C-alpha cells in the first residue's frame, strides 16, 4: 500500500537527505549536474542562439526577438510593450529599480543586459564620464523632435553639444497622504517628518534612495536638497535616526502599501501620486513648501547594450507622440513634448498634481551630480538603514 504513495512522490525525505549527503561528498549525477549548475539551460540557450535549434524568424530589420529595459516602478503602460512586440516581434523584459545608484552599480559592474534604460537628469554626466552610455545616433530616432521639448527639462541630456539621452517626462518628489487616516493638512516637509513621529507613527514610508530621503530631511531645516556640507548632513542624520523607529518601511515601491492601507503617508513621485489619487481619491499628493526635488527622467542606451537595434527601435517607438500620450495617461507623469501635450485631455493638463502652481515649483531643485557619487551621503544612508 505504502509503495503506491512512494511512487507518486518526486522525492522522499530519506532520498532528499541522502542526496544532500551525496552532494556534500561531492558525488553528483549528470542530470543533477546540468540541473544544479544551469548548464543544461545554458546549453539549450546556446544551441538556440547559435542557430543549432530553429528559432522563430522575424524578417525585415534584424532586431532580434528580445531586449530588456531598466526603469522605475509603475512607470509604463504594459500595453505599450505588447504593441511594440506585435509590431516588431521584439519581447521587452522590464527591470524595475528603486534608485539611480542601483542602475549605476549594475552598469558599472558590466553585463547588465539592458538595451535601454531610464536615468534621472543628474546622473547623466557621471555616465558620460565613466564612458558607459552611447552618444545617441539621432538618425535612428526620427520620432524625436528637440524643438518641441521644453529646454528647462532637457539640458542635462546633452553634453558638449552631443545628445546622450532624450527626455521621457519630468516630475516632482512630494508627499502622498491618505487624508482619511491623517486628517491634519500637510503642506511642508517639516510637517511630514513631525507627523511621521506622531499621528503617522508606524505608517510612514520613505524612499530607499539617499537623494530624496536625505534631501527631504535636509529640507526640514531649510537646507539645500543637494547639500554636501558636513554639519547640515549631521543634522539631517540626527532627524533620520530619530524618525527611523517610527517608520513603516524604507522602500521605493510604496504603491502597494499605500493602496492596501498599510502605509498612510509616503515620499512620492508625481507619477505615483497621480496614479494613487486617480484610483483612491482620498490619497492626496502635495509638495513641501520648503522645496524639494524636481526631476527629468531620460532614456539612454548603455554602451554594452546587447541589442542596440532593438533599443533604438523601442526608443523611437516611445518618442512617437501617439504612443507617448498613452504612456502619459497610464503613468501620470507630466510630458515635456509639446506634441504630446497637445494630444492630452484638458483635465490632465489642468491636474495640479501634474502641473503644480508656480509658487510651489519655484523653490524646487534639480538633483546635483555630486550627490550621486558622494561617499559621505552613501554612508549616511547606510547608517540610517542599519540603525
Amino acid at each position, binding site marked *: *500500500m*505504502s509503495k503506491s*504513495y*512512494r511512487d507518486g*512522490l518526486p*522525492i*522522499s*525525505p*530519506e532520498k*532528499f*537527505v541522502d542526496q544532500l549527503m551525496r552532494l*556534500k561528498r*561531492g558525488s553528483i549525477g549528470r542530470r543533477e549536474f546540468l540541473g544544479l*549548475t544551469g548548464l543544461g539551460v545554458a546549453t539549450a540557450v546556446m544551441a538556440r542562439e547559435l542557430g543549432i535549434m530553429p528559432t522563430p524568424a522575424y524578417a525585415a530589420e534584424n532586431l532580434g526577438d528580445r531586449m530588456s529595459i531598466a526603469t522605475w516602478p509603475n512607470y509604463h503602460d504594459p500595453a505599450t510593450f505588447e504593441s511594440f512586440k506585435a509590431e516588431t516581434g521584439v519581447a521587452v523584459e522590464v527591470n524595475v529599480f528603486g*534608485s539611480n*545608484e*542601483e542602475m*549605476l*552599480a*549594475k552598469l*558599472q559592474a558590466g553585463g547588465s543586459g539592458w538595451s535601454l534604460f531610464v536615468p534621472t537628469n543628474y546622473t547623466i554626466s*557621471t555616465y558620460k*564620464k*565613466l564612458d558607459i552610455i552611447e552618444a545617441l545616433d539621432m538618425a535612428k530616432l526620427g520620432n524625436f523632435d528637440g524643438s518641441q521639448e521644453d529646454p528647462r527639462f532637457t539640458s542635462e541630456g546633452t553634453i558638449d553639444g552631443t545628445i546622450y539621452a532624450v527626455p521621457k517626462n519630468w516630475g516632482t518628489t512630494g508627499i502622498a497622504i491618505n487624508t482619511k487616516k491623517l486628517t491634519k493638512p500637510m503642506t511642508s516637509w517639516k510637517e511630514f517628518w513631525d507627523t511621521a513621529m506622531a499621528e503617522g507613527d*508606524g*505608517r510612514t*514610508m520613505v524612499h*530607499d534612495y*539617499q537623494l530624496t530621503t536625505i534631501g527631504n530631511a535636509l529640507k526640514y531645516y531649510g537646507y539645500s536638497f543637494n547639500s554636501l556640507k558636513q554639519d547640515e548632513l549631521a543634522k539631517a542624520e540626527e532627524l533620520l535616526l530619530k524618525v*527611523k523607529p517610527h*517608520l*513603516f*518601511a*524604507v*522602500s521605493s515601491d510604496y504603491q*502597494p*502599501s499605500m493602496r*492596501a*492601507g*498599510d502605509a498612510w503617508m509616503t515620499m512620492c513621485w508625481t507619477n505615483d501620486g497621480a496614479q494613487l489619487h486617480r484610483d483612491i481619491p482620498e490619497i492626496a499628493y502635495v509638495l513641501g513648501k520648503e522645496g524639494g526635488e524636481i526631476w527629468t527622467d531620460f532614456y539612454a542606451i548603455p554602451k554594452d547594450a546587447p541589442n542596440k537595434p532593438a533599443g533604438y527601435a523601442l526608443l523611437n517607438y516611445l518618442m512617437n507622440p501617439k504612443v507617448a500620450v498613452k504612456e502619459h495617461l497610464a503613468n501620470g507623469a507630466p510630458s515635456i513634448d509639446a506634441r504630446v501635450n497637445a494630444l492630452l485631455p484638458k483635465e490632465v493638463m489642468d491636474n495640479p498634481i501634474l502641473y503644480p502652481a508656480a509658487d510651489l515649483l519655484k523653490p524646487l531643485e534639480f538633483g546635483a551630480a555630486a550627490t550621486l*557619487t558622494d*561617499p559621505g551621503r*552613501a*554612508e549616511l*544612508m*547606510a*547608517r540610517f*538603514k*542599519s*540603525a
Partner: protein
Amino acid sequence: MSGAGHKPDPGNATGGQWPAGTEAAFSMRGTLLRKNLMTALLLAPATLWLVVFLVLPFVAIAIFSVGERAPEGGYQAAFTLAQYANLPARATAFWNTMVLAPVGAFACLLVAYPVAYYLALRAPERWRLILLALVVIPFWTSLLMRTYAWMYVLGGRGIPALLAYVGIEDVRLINTPGAVLLGIVYGYLPLMILPIYVSLERLDRRLLEASADLGATPLSTFLGVTLRLSLPGVMTGFSLVMILLLGEYLIPTLLGGGKVFFIGNALVDLFLQSRNWPFGSAIAITLVLVSVVVLIAANRISARLSGARRVDLI
C-alpha cells in the same frame, strides 16, 4: 608494461638485465600511476569548477577588500586595511544577524521538532508519506514567491482586514520583527524537519521500551533517549538553517520593510547602492570567516552533546 617479455627499459641508461622482482614492481607502479591518472581525470572537472567559481571569486574578493572605492564608486587598486578597520560601521547589521540567525534557527527548531517527532514516531504508516510530501511540496516553490505571498497575507488586505471585520481596527503585522521571524520559520522549516525526521526514524524503538522498563518517566525517556539520539539531526538542521540565515536578505527586505537590517542587506547596499566594493568585500570575507567559526563551534557542541559519536555537519 606487460610482464611477459624481458625488454630493456628504454629510459634506463644501464639497459641491463633486471632481477625478477623488479619487473613486478614496475608493473605495479604502472597500475598505480594509471589509477592516479584516472582519479585525477575524474576529479578534474570538479576541481576546475571549484577553482573557477569558488576559489577565484574568493581571491578576487580578498584582493578587492584591501583596495579603495573609486571616486565614482566601484574598485580601485590599493593596499590598505582601512576597509577592515571600518568594519565597526556595520556593527549593528552584524549584531542583528548574530541575534536573528540563531533565534530564527531556534524558532524553526521549536516548530520543526514536534512535527518531525509526530511524523517519525506517531503518524499512522499510511499517512506518513502524504504528510511528508505536504512538508516538502511548498519547498519546490521559490522562496521569493512564498515570501511575497506572506506580504499579502500579513498586509492590510490580509489578516488585518479580517480583524477589522470583527471590530479590531488598524492592526499592523507586516514590516515588524515578528513578521521577519515568521517568514524565516516558514521559509526554512523543511530544512529543519527533514534531518530531524531522518534521525528520529532511525531510532531503535526497543531503547524506548527498555527505558520504560527500567522505570523512566515518559519525559525522562524523551530527554535521555529520544532527544539525545536525534541530536545529530537537530544539529544538522540547526546549522543548515543558521548558515543560510547568516546570508539572508530577502525576507528582512520584504517582510521587514527594509527596516530590519541584516548583514546580507548591508552587503547588497554596499554593492548596489553606495558601490563601495572594497568595503563590501571586506564584510563578505568577515562573514565567511564568521560562518566557518560558527560551523566549527556547532560541530564541537554536537559532538560533545551526542557523546562520542562523530557528526558531520557539512
